[in-house]
Protein backbone atom coordinates (compact mmCIF):
# COMPACT_ATOMS: atom_id res chain seq x y z
CA UNK A 1 0.00 0.00 0.00
CA UNK A 2 1.35 3.42 -1.00
CA UNK A 3 0.33 6.35 1.21
CA UNK A 4 -0.03 9.62 -0.66
CA UNK A 5 -0.20 13.04 1.02
CA UNK A 6 -2.15 15.48 -1.15
CA UNK A 7 -2.26 19.22 -0.58
CA UNK A 8 -5.74 20.41 0.38
CA UNK A 9 -7.31 22.86 -2.03
CA UNK A 10 -7.63 23.50 -5.73
CA UNK A 11 -4.12 22.32 -6.60
CA UNK A 12 -4.63 19.10 -4.61
CA UNK A 13 -7.83 18.33 -6.50
CA UNK A 14 -6.04 18.83 -9.82
CA UNK A 15 -3.22 16.60 -8.61
CA UNK A 16 -5.70 13.89 -7.59
CA UNK A 17 -7.29 14.08 -11.06
CA UNK A 18 -3.84 13.47 -12.47
CA UNK A 19 -3.38 10.41 -10.25
CA UNK A 20 -6.82 9.21 -11.38
CA UNK A 21 -5.92 9.61 -15.05
CA UNK A 22 -2.65 7.80 -14.35
CA UNK A 23 -4.67 4.78 -13.18
CA UNK A 24 -4.67 5.34 -9.41
CA UNK A 25 -8.29 6.27 -8.92
CA UNK A 26 -10.08 6.23 -5.58
CA UNK A 27 -13.70 7.25 -6.27
CA UNK A 28 -14.61 7.71 -2.59
CA UNK A 29 -12.37 10.79 -2.47
CA UNK A 30 -14.91 12.71 -4.54
CA UNK A 31 -17.84 11.85 -2.25
CA UNK A 32 -18.93 14.74 -0.12
CA UNK A 33 -17.91 13.35 3.28
CA UNK A 34 -15.87 14.47 6.27
CA UNK A 35 -13.49 11.57 5.85
CA UNK A 36 -9.80 12.43 5.73
CA UNK A 37 -8.34 9.18 4.45
CA UNK A 38 -9.40 7.42 1.25
CA UNK A 39 -8.25 4.03 0.15
CA UNK A 40 -8.41 1.87 -2.96
CA UNK A 41 -7.19 -1.54 -1.80
CA UNK A 42 -7.29 -2.98 -5.28
CA UNK A 43 -4.91 -0.31 -6.60
CA UNK A 44 -2.86 -0.42 -3.41
CA UNK A 45 -3.16 3.30 -2.79
CA UNK A 46 -4.30 5.45 0.11
CA UNK A 47 -4.75 9.22 -0.17
CA UNK A 48 -5.07 11.81 2.55
CA UNK A 49 -5.50 15.56 2.47
CA UNK A 50 -3.16 17.73 4.49
CA UNK A 51 -2.30 21.41 4.64
CA UNK A 52 -0.06 22.13 1.60
CA UNK A 53 2.85 23.31 3.75
CA UNK A 54 2.65 20.10 5.81
CA UNK A 55 2.94 17.64 2.91
CA UNK A 56 6.73 17.55 3.07
CA UNK A 57 6.62 16.91 6.83
CA UNK A 58 4.34 13.87 6.37
CA UNK A 59 6.63 12.55 3.64
CA UNK A 60 9.92 13.27 5.43
CA UNK A 61 8.65 11.57 8.60
CA UNK A 62 7.41 8.57 6.63
CA UNK A 63 3.67 8.84 7.41
CA UNK A 64 3.26 9.27 3.67
CA UNK A 65 5.41 7.39 1.18
CA UNK A 66 4.96 10.04 -1.47
CA UNK A 67 3.27 13.42 -1.70
CA UNK A 68 2.88 16.52 -3.78
CA UNK A 69 4.44 19.75 -2.54
CA UNK A 70 5.21 23.13 -4.07
CA UNK A 71 8.84 23.89 -4.88
CA UNK A 72 8.48 26.96 -2.61
CA UNK A 73 7.92 24.69 0.41
CA UNK A 74 10.79 22.40 -0.60
CA UNK A 75 13.18 25.35 -0.93
CA UNK A 76 12.05 26.95 2.30
CA UNK A 77 12.13 23.90 4.57
CA UNK A 78 14.66 21.74 2.67
CA UNK A 79 13.13 18.44 3.81
CA UNK A 80 15.28 15.32 3.44
CA UNK A 81 13.21 13.73 0.66
CA UNK A 82 13.60 12.70 -2.98
CA UNK A 83 12.15 15.07 -5.57
CA UNK A 84 11.08 12.64 -8.26
CA UNK A 85 9.01 14.60 -10.74
CA UNK A 86 8.00 18.11 -11.77
CA UNK A 87 4.23 17.87 -12.26
CA UNK A 88 4.24 21.09 -14.26
CA UNK A 89 1.13 22.36 -12.49
CA UNK A 90 0.54 25.11 -9.96
CA UNK A 91 3.11 27.11 -11.90
CA UNK A 92 4.17 30.47 -10.49
CA UNK A 93 7.40 32.14 -9.41
CA UNK A 94 9.13 33.29 -6.26
CA UNK A 95 9.86 36.95 -6.78
CA UNK A 96 11.02 40.19 -5.19
CA UNK A 97 8.41 42.92 -5.51
CA UNK A 98 8.20 46.51 -4.36
CA UNK A 99 6.32 49.74 -4.90
CA UNK A 100 6.39 50.83 -8.55
CA UNK A 101 8.52 53.86 -7.71
CA UNK A 102 10.94 52.03 -5.36
CA UNK A 103 14.58 52.03 -6.37
CA UNK A 104 17.16 50.04 -4.42
CA UNK A 105 20.42 51.98 -4.66
CA UNK A 106 22.14 49.54 -2.29
CA UNK A 107 23.19 52.31 0.10
CA UNK A 108 21.34 51.02 3.16
CA UNK A 109 20.01 47.82 4.73
CA UNK A 110 17.11 46.50 2.67
CA UNK A 111 13.95 45.71 4.66
CA UNK A 112 12.42 42.51 3.28
CA UNK A 113 9.00 41.22 4.35
CA UNK A 114 8.25 37.57 3.58
CA UNK A 115 6.73 34.27 4.60
CA UNK A 116 9.75 32.56 3.03
CA UNK A 117 12.56 33.61 5.35
CA UNK A 118 15.11 31.02 4.24
CA UNK A 119 14.58 31.60 0.53
CA UNK A 120 14.90 35.38 1.00
CA UNK A 121 18.03 35.06 3.18
CA UNK A 122 19.70 32.72 0.71
CA UNK A 123 18.84 34.95 -2.24
CA UNK A 124 20.30 38.10 -0.71
CA UNK A 125 23.28 36.24 0.81
CA UNK A 126 24.22 35.17 -2.72
CA UNK A 127 24.39 38.89 -3.59
CA UNK A 128 26.15 39.86 -0.34
CA UNK A 129 23.28 42.31 0.30
CA UNK A 130 22.61 43.34 3.90
CA UNK A 131 18.93 42.81 4.71
CA UNK A 132 16.54 43.11 7.60
CA UNK A 133 14.12 40.19 7.40
CA UNK A 134 10.55 40.76 8.58
CA UNK A 135 8.68 37.48 8.92
CA UNK A 136 4.98 37.82 8.11
CA UNK A 137 2.33 35.13 7.91
CA UNK A 138 -0.02 36.61 5.32
CA UNK A 139 -1.09 39.72 3.35
CA UNK A 140 2.56 40.31 2.54
CA UNK A 141 1.70 42.86 -0.18
CA UNK A 142 0.61 45.40 2.41
CA UNK A 143 4.09 45.64 3.98
CA UNK A 144 5.74 47.98 1.43
CA UNK A 145 2.57 50.04 1.07
CA UNK A 146 2.54 50.82 4.79
CA UNK A 147 6.29 51.32 4.90
CA UNK A 148 6.93 48.20 6.99
CA UNK A 149 9.38 46.97 4.38
CA UNK A 150 11.11 48.14 1.20
CA UNK A 151 10.35 44.98 -0.72
CA UNK A 152 8.61 41.63 -0.33
CA UNK A 153 9.66 38.14 -1.33
CA UNK A 154 6.57 36.18 -2.24
CA UNK A 155 4.88 33.89 -4.72
CA UNK A 156 3.59 35.64 -7.81
CA UNK A 157 1.13 33.86 -10.05
CA UNK A 158 -0.41 36.39 -12.43
CA UNK A 159 0.86 39.57 -10.79
CA UNK A 160 -2.70 40.94 -10.65
CA UNK A 161 -2.73 41.50 -6.86
CA UNK A 162 0.59 43.33 -7.11
CA UNK A 163 -0.63 45.52 -9.93
CA UNK A 164 -3.83 46.49 -8.12
CA UNK A 165 -1.70 47.62 -5.17
CA UNK A 166 0.77 49.64 -7.24
CA UNK A 167 3.47 47.06 -6.74
CA UNK A 168 5.58 45.37 -9.38
CA UNK A 169 7.96 42.47 -9.71
CA UNK A 170 11.57 43.63 -9.51
CA UNK A 171 13.29 40.28 -9.80
CA UNK A 172 12.37 36.62 -10.23
CA UNK A 173 14.19 34.38 -7.76
CA UNK A 174 13.06 30.95 -8.93
CA UNK A 175 10.19 29.38 -10.90
CA UNK A 176 7.81 27.32 -8.78
CA UNK A 177 5.60 24.32 -9.58
CA UNK A 178 4.20 21.24 -7.86
CA UNK A 179 6.67 18.38 -7.33
CA UNK A 180 6.15 14.71 -6.59
CA UNK A 181 8.30 13.85 -3.57
CA UNK A 182 9.11 10.57 -1.86
CA UNK A 183 10.32 9.48 1.54
CA UNK A 184 13.85 8.12 1.15
CA UNK A 185 13.30 4.97 3.17
CA UNK A 186 9.94 4.21 1.49
CA UNK A 187 11.69 4.45 -1.87
CA UNK A 188 14.06 1.67 -0.80
CA UNK A 189 11.36 -0.72 0.33
CA UNK A 190 8.61 0.13 -2.17
CA UNK A 191 10.85 0.89 -5.15
CA UNK A 192 8.79 -0.89 -7.78
CA UNK A 193 5.45 0.64 -6.73
CA UNK A 194 6.85 4.16 -6.45
CA UNK A 195 8.76 3.98 -9.73
CA UNK A 196 5.58 2.76 -11.45
CA UNK A 197 3.61 5.71 -10.08
CA UNK A 198 6.35 8.12 -11.22
CA UNK A 199 6.29 6.62 -14.70
CA UNK A 200 2.49 6.82 -14.99
CA UNK A 201 2.48 10.40 -13.68
CA UNK A 202 5.28 11.34 -16.07
CA UNK A 203 3.14 10.11 -18.95
CA UNK A 204 0.33 12.34 -17.68
CA UNK A 205 2.64 15.36 -17.50
CA UNK A 206 3.64 14.73 -21.12
CA UNK A 207 -0.03 14.34 -22.18
CA UNK A 208 -0.98 17.57 -20.40
CA UNK A 209 1.89 19.40 -22.12
Amino acid at each position, binding site marked *: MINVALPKGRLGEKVYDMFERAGYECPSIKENTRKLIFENKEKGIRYFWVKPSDVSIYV*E*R*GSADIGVAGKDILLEY*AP*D*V*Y*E*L*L*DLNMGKCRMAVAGKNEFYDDGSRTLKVATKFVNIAKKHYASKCRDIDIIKLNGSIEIAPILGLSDVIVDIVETGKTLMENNLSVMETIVPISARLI*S*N*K*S*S*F*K*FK*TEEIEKIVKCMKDQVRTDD
Partner: protein
Amino acid sequence: MIDTRLLKNEERAIFTLRALYNKYGYLPFKMSKFEEYDIYVRNKDFLVSDSVITFNDTNGKLLALKPDVTLSIIKNTTDKAGCKDKVYYNENVYRVSPKTHQFKEIMQTGLECIGDIDEYDVFEAVYLASKSLDTVSPDFVLDISHMGIISAILDEACDSLCFKKEALRLIAERNIHETEALCREFGIDEESKNAICSFVNMYGTVDAVLPELDKLCVSERAKKELGDLRSLCALISKTEYKNNIHIDFSVLNDMSYYNGIVFKGFLKGIPEGVLSGGRYDKLIERMGRKSGAIGFALYLDLLEELNTEKRLYDVDTLIIYDDTVGADKIADTVAELTKNGLRVSCQKAIPEKLRYKEKVNLCKEGR
Protein backbone atom coordinates in the same frame (compact mmCIF):
# COMPACT_ATOMS: atom_id res chain seq x y z
CA MET B 1 21.25 -14.15 33.22
CA ILE B 2 19.93 -11.28 31.11
CA ASP B 3 16.30 -11.47 30.04
CA THR B 4 16.73 -10.21 26.46
CA ARG B 5 12.98 -9.67 26.16
CA LEU B 6 13.36 -6.68 28.44
CA LEU B 7 16.04 -5.07 26.31
CA LYS B 8 15.17 -2.20 24.02
CA ASN B 9 16.21 -2.44 20.34
CA GLU B 10 19.18 -0.14 20.88
CA GLU B 11 20.35 -1.99 24.00
CA ARG B 12 20.14 -5.33 22.25
CA ALA B 13 22.06 -3.88 19.29
CA ILE B 14 24.88 -2.61 21.54
CA PHE B 15 25.40 -6.06 23.07
CA THR B 16 25.25 -7.96 19.81
CA LEU B 17 27.37 -5.53 17.83
CA ARG B 18 30.07 -5.42 20.47
CA ALA B 19 30.50 -9.17 20.05
CA LEU B 20 30.36 -8.88 16.26
CA TYR B 21 33.02 -6.17 15.97
CA ASN B 22 35.26 -7.97 18.47
CA LYS B 23 35.02 -11.11 16.36
CA TYR B 24 36.48 -9.23 13.40
CA GLY B 25 39.42 -7.85 15.37
CA TYR B 26 38.04 -4.42 16.20
CA LEU B 27 39.02 -3.18 19.64
CA PRO B 28 36.86 -1.03 21.91
CA PHE B 29 37.66 2.67 21.92
CA LYS B 30 36.44 4.78 24.82
CA MET B 31 36.79 8.50 24.53
CA SER B 32 36.10 11.58 26.55
CA LYS B 33 32.83 13.44 26.04
CA PHE B 34 34.84 16.61 25.34
CA GLU B 35 37.25 17.52 22.60
CA GLU B 36 39.21 20.65 21.77
CA TYR B 37 37.00 22.90 19.68
CA ASP B 38 39.83 23.68 17.28
CA ILE B 39 39.64 20.30 15.54
CA TYR B 40 36.01 20.93 14.53
CA VAL B 41 36.73 24.43 13.23
CA ARG B 42 39.41 23.05 10.93
CA ASN B 43 37.10 20.34 9.60
CA LYS B 44 33.75 22.08 9.82
CA ASP B 45 32.31 20.71 6.59
CA PHE B 46 32.98 17.15 7.72
CA LEU B 47 30.47 17.54 10.53
CA VAL B 48 26.84 16.62 9.97
CA SER B 49 25.67 19.86 11.61
CA ASP B 50 27.47 23.19 11.83
CA SER B 51 26.65 23.99 15.44
CA VAL B 52 28.75 22.66 18.29
CA ILE B 53 28.15 23.06 22.03
CA THR B 54 31.23 24.79 23.42
CA PHE B 55 32.45 25.78 26.87
CA ASN B 56 35.66 26.94 28.53
CA ASP B 57 37.75 24.48 30.47
CA THR B 58 39.19 25.53 33.85
CA ASN B 59 42.38 26.67 32.07
CA GLY B 60 40.41 28.78 29.61
CA LYS B 61 40.78 26.40 26.69
CA LEU B 62 37.71 26.17 24.45
CA LEU B 63 36.24 22.70 24.50
CA ALA B 64 33.28 21.15 22.72
CA LEU B 65 30.81 18.42 23.52
CA LYS B 66 31.65 15.91 20.80
CA PRO B 67 29.55 16.36 17.65
CA ASP B 68 31.48 13.53 15.97
CA VAL B 69 33.71 10.63 16.97
CA THR B 70 35.69 10.00 13.77
CA LEU B 71 37.96 13.05 14.12
CA SER B 72 38.89 12.07 17.69
CA ILE B 73 39.66 8.50 16.64
CA ILE B 74 41.90 9.66 13.77
CA LYS B 75 43.91 11.74 16.27
CA ASN B 76 44.61 8.59 18.23
CA THR B 77 45.96 6.52 15.36
CA THR B 78 49.33 6.48 13.60
CA ASP B 79 50.49 5.74 10.05
CA LYS B 80 52.36 2.46 9.76
CA ALA B 81 52.95 0.60 6.48
CA GLY B 82 50.97 -2.61 6.21
CA CYS B 83 49.09 -2.06 9.50
CA LYS B 84 45.66 -0.83 10.43
CA ASP B 85 44.08 0.51 13.57
CA LYS B 86 40.69 -1.16 13.90
CA VAL B 87 38.41 0.23 16.60
CA TYR B 88 34.74 0.25 17.49
CA TYR B 89 32.91 2.63 19.75
CA ASN B 90 29.63 3.27 21.44
CA GLU B 91 29.35 6.96 22.20
CA ASN B 92 26.92 9.84 22.49
CA VAL B 93 27.38 12.79 20.16
CA TYR B 94 25.69 16.20 20.33
CA ARG B 95 24.29 17.68 17.14
CA VAL B 96 21.58 19.99 15.93
CA SER B 97 18.71 17.99 14.52
CA PRO B 98 17.85 19.23 11.00
CA LYS B 99 14.20 18.55 11.79
CA THR B 100 13.81 20.36 15.11
CA HIS B 101 16.78 22.76 14.83
CA GLN B 102 17.65 21.97 18.43
CA PHE B 103 20.58 20.15 19.98
CA LYS B 104 20.07 16.46 20.40
CA GLU B 105 22.02 13.72 22.14
CA ILE B 106 22.54 10.93 19.61
CA MET B 107 23.72 7.49 20.62
CA GLN B 108 26.05 6.03 18.00
CA THR B 109 27.85 2.79 17.62
CA GLY B 110 30.25 2.10 14.81
CA LEU B 111 33.71 1.24 13.70
CA GLU B 112 36.70 2.81 12.02
CA CYS B 113 39.53 1.11 10.16
CA ILE B 114 42.46 3.49 9.68
CA GLY B 115 45.84 2.69 8.13
CA ASP B 116 47.04 0.76 5.11
CA ILE B 117 43.54 0.13 3.70
CA ASP B 118 43.03 -2.32 0.86
CA GLU B 119 40.21 -3.97 -1.08
CA TYR B 120 39.50 -6.47 1.68
CA ASP B 121 39.17 -3.77 4.36
CA VAL B 122 36.60 -1.93 2.27
CA PHE B 123 34.64 -5.14 1.78
CA GLU B 124 34.88 -5.96 5.49
CA ALA B 125 33.46 -2.54 6.44
CA VAL B 126 30.57 -2.90 3.98
CA TYR B 127 29.93 -6.47 5.12
CA LEU B 128 29.96 -5.51 8.80
CA ALA B 129 27.64 -2.58 8.06
CA SER B 130 25.21 -5.08 6.48
CA LYS B 131 25.60 -7.46 9.37
CA SER B 132 25.00 -4.62 11.84
CA LEU B 133 21.73 -3.76 10.13
CA ASP B 134 20.75 -7.44 9.94
CA THR B 135 21.31 -7.70 13.69
CA VAL B 136 18.58 -5.13 14.23
CA SER B 137 16.19 -6.31 11.52
CA PRO B 138 16.48 -8.60 8.49
CA ASP B 139 14.36 -6.09 6.53
CA PHE B 140 17.20 -3.79 5.59
CA VAL B 141 18.78 -2.16 2.57
CA LEU B 142 22.37 -0.95 2.34
CA ASP B 143 22.83 1.50 -0.51
CA ILE B 144 26.34 1.91 -1.82
CA SER B 145 27.75 4.50 -4.14
CA HIS B 146 31.19 5.56 -5.34
CA MET B 147 32.40 9.15 -5.07
CA GLY B 148 35.22 8.52 -7.56
CA ILE B 149 32.84 7.48 -10.34
CA ILE B 150 30.51 10.44 -9.87
CA SER B 151 33.47 12.80 -9.60
CA ALA B 152 34.97 11.47 -12.85
CA ILE B 153 31.68 11.77 -14.77
CA LEU B 154 31.04 15.34 -13.54
CA ASP B 155 34.63 16.49 -14.12
CA GLU B 156 34.47 15.22 -17.68
CA ALA B 157 31.19 17.05 -18.27
CA CYS B 158 32.18 20.49 -16.96
CA ASP B 159 35.01 22.32 -15.19
CA SER B 160 32.75 24.57 -13.15
CA LEU B 161 32.78 23.94 -9.39
CA CYS B 162 29.37 25.54 -9.17
CA PHE B 163 27.99 23.02 -11.68
CA LYS B 164 29.52 20.13 -9.79
CA LYS B 165 28.13 21.26 -6.45
CA GLU B 166 24.62 21.74 -7.84
CA ALA B 167 24.74 18.47 -9.79
CA LEU B 168 25.70 16.54 -6.64
CA ARG B 169 22.83 18.09 -4.73
CA LEU B 170 20.36 17.18 -7.48
CA ILE B 171 21.67 13.62 -7.84
CA ALA B 172 21.23 13.22 -4.08
CA GLU B 173 17.62 14.39 -4.48
CA ARG B 174 16.98 12.06 -7.46
CA ASN B 175 15.87 15.24 -9.13
CA ILE B 176 16.06 14.47 -12.83
CA HIS B 177 14.05 17.45 -14.10
CA GLU B 178 16.33 20.01 -12.47
CA THR B 179 19.46 18.03 -13.42
CA GLU B 180 18.39 18.31 -17.06
CA ALA B 181 17.79 22.04 -16.61
CA LEU B 182 21.19 22.48 -14.94
CA CYS B 183 22.93 20.68 -17.81
CA ARG B 184 21.15 22.94 -20.29
CA GLU B 185 22.17 26.03 -18.28
CA PHE B 186 25.84 25.01 -18.33
CA GLY B 187 25.76 23.92 -21.98
CA ILE B 188 26.63 20.30 -21.22
CA ASP B 189 26.70 18.11 -24.34
CA GLU B 190 23.89 15.63 -24.92
CA GLU B 191 25.98 12.55 -24.21
CA SER B 192 27.27 13.81 -20.86
CA LYS B 193 23.80 15.06 -19.92
CA ASN B 194 22.31 11.63 -20.58
CA ALA B 195 25.07 9.99 -18.57
CA ILE B 196 24.53 12.29 -15.56
CA CYS B 197 20.76 11.78 -15.73
CA SER B 198 21.28 8.01 -15.83
CA PHE B 199 23.06 8.28 -12.48
CA VAL B 200 20.05 10.10 -11.04
CA ASN B 201 17.74 7.28 -12.12
CA MET B 202 20.00 4.36 -11.31
CA TYR B 203 18.87 2.08 -8.50
CA GLY B 204 19.00 -1.65 -7.96
CA THR B 205 20.99 -4.66 -6.93
CA VAL B 206 24.64 -4.96 -7.82
CA ASP B 207 23.90 -7.45 -10.62
CA ALA B 208 21.25 -5.21 -12.16
CA VAL B 209 23.20 -1.95 -12.07
CA LEU B 210 26.78 -2.94 -12.95
CA PRO B 211 26.06 -3.60 -16.66
CA GLU B 212 24.46 -0.13 -16.88
CA LEU B 213 27.53 1.43 -15.28
CA ASP B 214 29.73 -0.31 -17.81
CA LYS B 215 28.07 1.66 -20.58
CA LEU B 216 28.42 4.98 -18.76
CA CYS B 217 32.02 4.75 -17.57
CA VAL B 218 33.91 5.16 -20.83
CA SER B 219 36.91 7.33 -19.93
CA GLU B 220 40.06 5.76 -18.45
CA ARG B 221 39.52 7.53 -15.14
CA ALA B 222 35.89 6.47 -14.84
CA LYS B 223 36.78 2.89 -15.83
CA LYS B 224 39.46 2.77 -13.14
CA GLU B 225 37.02 3.98 -10.48
CA LEU B 226 34.40 1.50 -11.71
CA GLY B 227 37.01 -1.25 -11.35
CA ASP B 228 37.22 -0.38 -7.66
CA LEU B 229 33.44 -0.70 -7.26
CA ARG B 230 33.37 -3.85 -9.36
CA SER B 231 35.90 -5.60 -7.10
CA LEU B 232 33.77 -4.78 -4.08
CA CYS B 233 30.61 -5.97 -5.84
CA ALA B 234 32.26 -9.28 -6.75
CA LEU B 235 32.92 -9.92 -3.06
CA ILE B 236 29.42 -8.77 -2.08
CA SER B 237 27.87 -11.19 -4.57
CA LYS B 238 29.31 -14.09 -2.61
CA THR B 239 27.68 -13.03 0.65
CA GLU B 240 24.24 -13.66 2.10
CA TYR B 241 23.50 -9.93 1.68
CA LYS B 242 23.76 -9.64 -2.09
CA ASN B 243 20.05 -8.86 -2.39
CA ASN B 244 20.09 -6.33 0.42
CA ILE B 245 22.94 -4.28 -0.99
CA HIS B 246 21.92 -1.85 -3.74
CA ILE B 247 23.84 0.60 -5.87
CA ASP B 248 22.40 4.07 -5.46
CA PHE B 249 24.24 7.22 -6.51
CA SER B 250 21.90 9.42 -4.48
CA VAL B 251 24.07 8.39 -1.52
CA LEU B 252 26.73 11.08 -1.61
CA ASN B 253 29.04 12.71 0.87
CA ASP B 254 31.27 15.77 0.81
CA MET B 255 33.89 15.29 -1.91
CA SER B 256 36.55 17.17 0.01
CA TYR B 257 36.53 14.45 2.70
CA TYR B 258 35.22 11.29 1.12
CA ASN B 259 36.54 9.29 -1.79
CA GLY B 260 35.69 5.84 -3.10
CA ILE B 261 32.87 3.85 -1.55
CA VAL B 262 30.19 5.59 0.52
CA PHE B 263 27.10 3.90 1.91
CA LYS B 264 23.88 4.39 3.81
CA GLY B 265 21.66 1.85 5.57
CA PHE B 266 17.89 1.79 5.90
CA LEU B 267 15.59 -0.38 8.01
CA LYS B 268 11.98 -1.03 7.04
CA GLY B 269 9.76 1.00 9.34
CA ILE B 270 12.25 3.80 10.04
CA PRO B 271 11.72 6.80 7.75
CA GLU B 272 15.37 7.85 7.52
CA GLY B 273 18.81 6.32 7.12
CA VAL B 274 20.05 4.60 10.29
CA LEU B 275 23.61 3.88 9.19
CA SER B 276 26.08 6.02 7.35
CA GLY B 277 29.65 5.43 6.31
CA GLY B 278 32.32 5.49 3.69
CA ARG B 279 35.94 5.83 2.78
CA TYR B 280 37.50 9.10 3.93
CA ASP B 281 41.16 9.09 2.86
CA LYS B 282 40.84 12.77 1.93
CA LEU B 283 40.00 13.74 5.51
CA ILE B 284 43.07 11.90 6.75
CA GLU B 285 45.12 13.67 4.07
CA ARG B 286 43.78 17.06 5.19
CA MET B 287 44.95 16.24 8.69
CA GLY B 288 48.47 15.83 7.32
CA ARG B 289 48.50 12.05 7.39
CA LYS B 290 49.17 9.36 4.82
CA SER B 291 46.77 6.60 5.84
CA GLY B 292 43.56 5.49 4.26
CA ALA B 293 40.37 5.08 6.29
CA ILE B 294 36.88 3.63 6.18
CA GLY B 295 34.19 3.47 8.82
CA PHE B 296 30.53 3.75 9.63
CA ALA B 297 28.14 4.72 12.39
CA LEU B 298 24.79 3.24 13.32
CA TYR B 299 22.39 5.75 14.88
CA LEU B 300 20.99 3.81 17.79
CA ASP B 301 18.49 6.45 18.90
CA LEU B 302 16.52 5.89 15.69
CA LEU B 303 15.99 2.23 16.51
CA GLU B 304 13.31 3.03 19.07
CA GLU B 305 11.07 3.87 16.10
CA LEU B 306 11.12 0.22 15.02
CA ASN B 307 7.93 -1.62 15.69
CA THR B 308 8.35 -3.43 18.94
CA GLU B 309 5.87 -5.70 20.60
CA LYS B 310 3.53 -3.51 22.66
CA ARG B 311 3.15 -4.79 26.19
CA LEU B 312 -0.43 -4.97 27.40
CA TYR B 313 0.54 -5.03 31.07
CA ASP B 314 3.19 -3.29 33.18
CA VAL B 315 3.34 -6.28 35.55
CA ASP B 316 1.86 -9.76 35.52
CA THR B 317 0.78 -9.82 39.15
CA LEU B 318 -0.17 -7.05 41.48
CA ILE B 319 0.28 -8.10 45.13
CA ILE B 320 -1.88 -6.15 47.55
CA TYR B 321 -1.04 -6.25 51.26
CA ASP B 322 -1.68 -4.22 54.42
CA ASP B 323 -0.12 -3.79 57.87
CA THR B 324 -1.51 -7.14 59.05
CA VAL B 325 0.59 -9.03 56.49
CA GLY B 326 4.10 -9.93 57.53
CA ALA B 327 7.06 -9.06 55.32
CA ASP B 328 8.06 -12.76 55.24
CA LYS B 329 4.73 -13.68 53.67
CA ILE B 330 5.11 -10.98 51.03
CA ALA B 331 8.70 -12.09 50.32
CA ASP B 332 7.62 -15.75 49.97
CA THR B 333 4.81 -14.82 47.56
CA VAL B 334 7.14 -12.65 45.46
CA ALA B 335 9.78 -15.41 45.41
CA GLU B 336 7.21 -17.98 44.28
CA LEU B 337 5.83 -15.81 41.47
CA THR B 338 9.14 -14.44 40.14
CA LYS B 339 10.57 -17.97 40.13
CA ASN B 340 7.98 -18.75 37.46
CA GLY B 341 9.11 -15.78 35.38
CA LEU B 342 6.30 -13.42 36.35
CA ARG B 343 6.73 -9.69 36.91
CA VAL B 344 5.27 -8.54 40.22
CA SER B 345 4.58 -5.29 42.00
CA CYS B 346 3.80 -5.15 45.76
CA GLN B 347 1.49 -2.30 46.75
CA LYS B 348 -0.78 -1.36 49.63
CA ALA B 349 -3.27 0.29 47.28
CA ILE B 350 -3.87 -0.19 43.58
CA PRO B 351 -1.83 2.43 41.70
CA GLU B 352 -3.98 4.46 39.33
CA LYS B 353 -2.02 3.88 36.14
CA LEU B 354 -0.55 0.43 36.73
CA ARG B 355 -1.72 -2.16 34.18
CA TYR B 356 -1.72 -5.67 35.69
CA LYS B 357 -2.88 -9.03 34.48
CA GLU B 358 -4.00 -10.44 37.83
CA LYS B 359 -4.27 -9.35 41.40
CA VAL B 360 -3.27 -11.29 44.52
CA ASN B 361 -4.65 -9.90 47.74
CA LEU B 362 -2.66 -10.98 50.81
CA CYS B 363 -4.84 -9.06 53.26
CA LYS B 364 -6.62 -11.15 55.88
CA GLU B 365 -10.13 -10.26 54.74
CA GLY B 366 -9.81 -11.59 51.27
CA ARG B 367 -7.82 -13.07 48.48
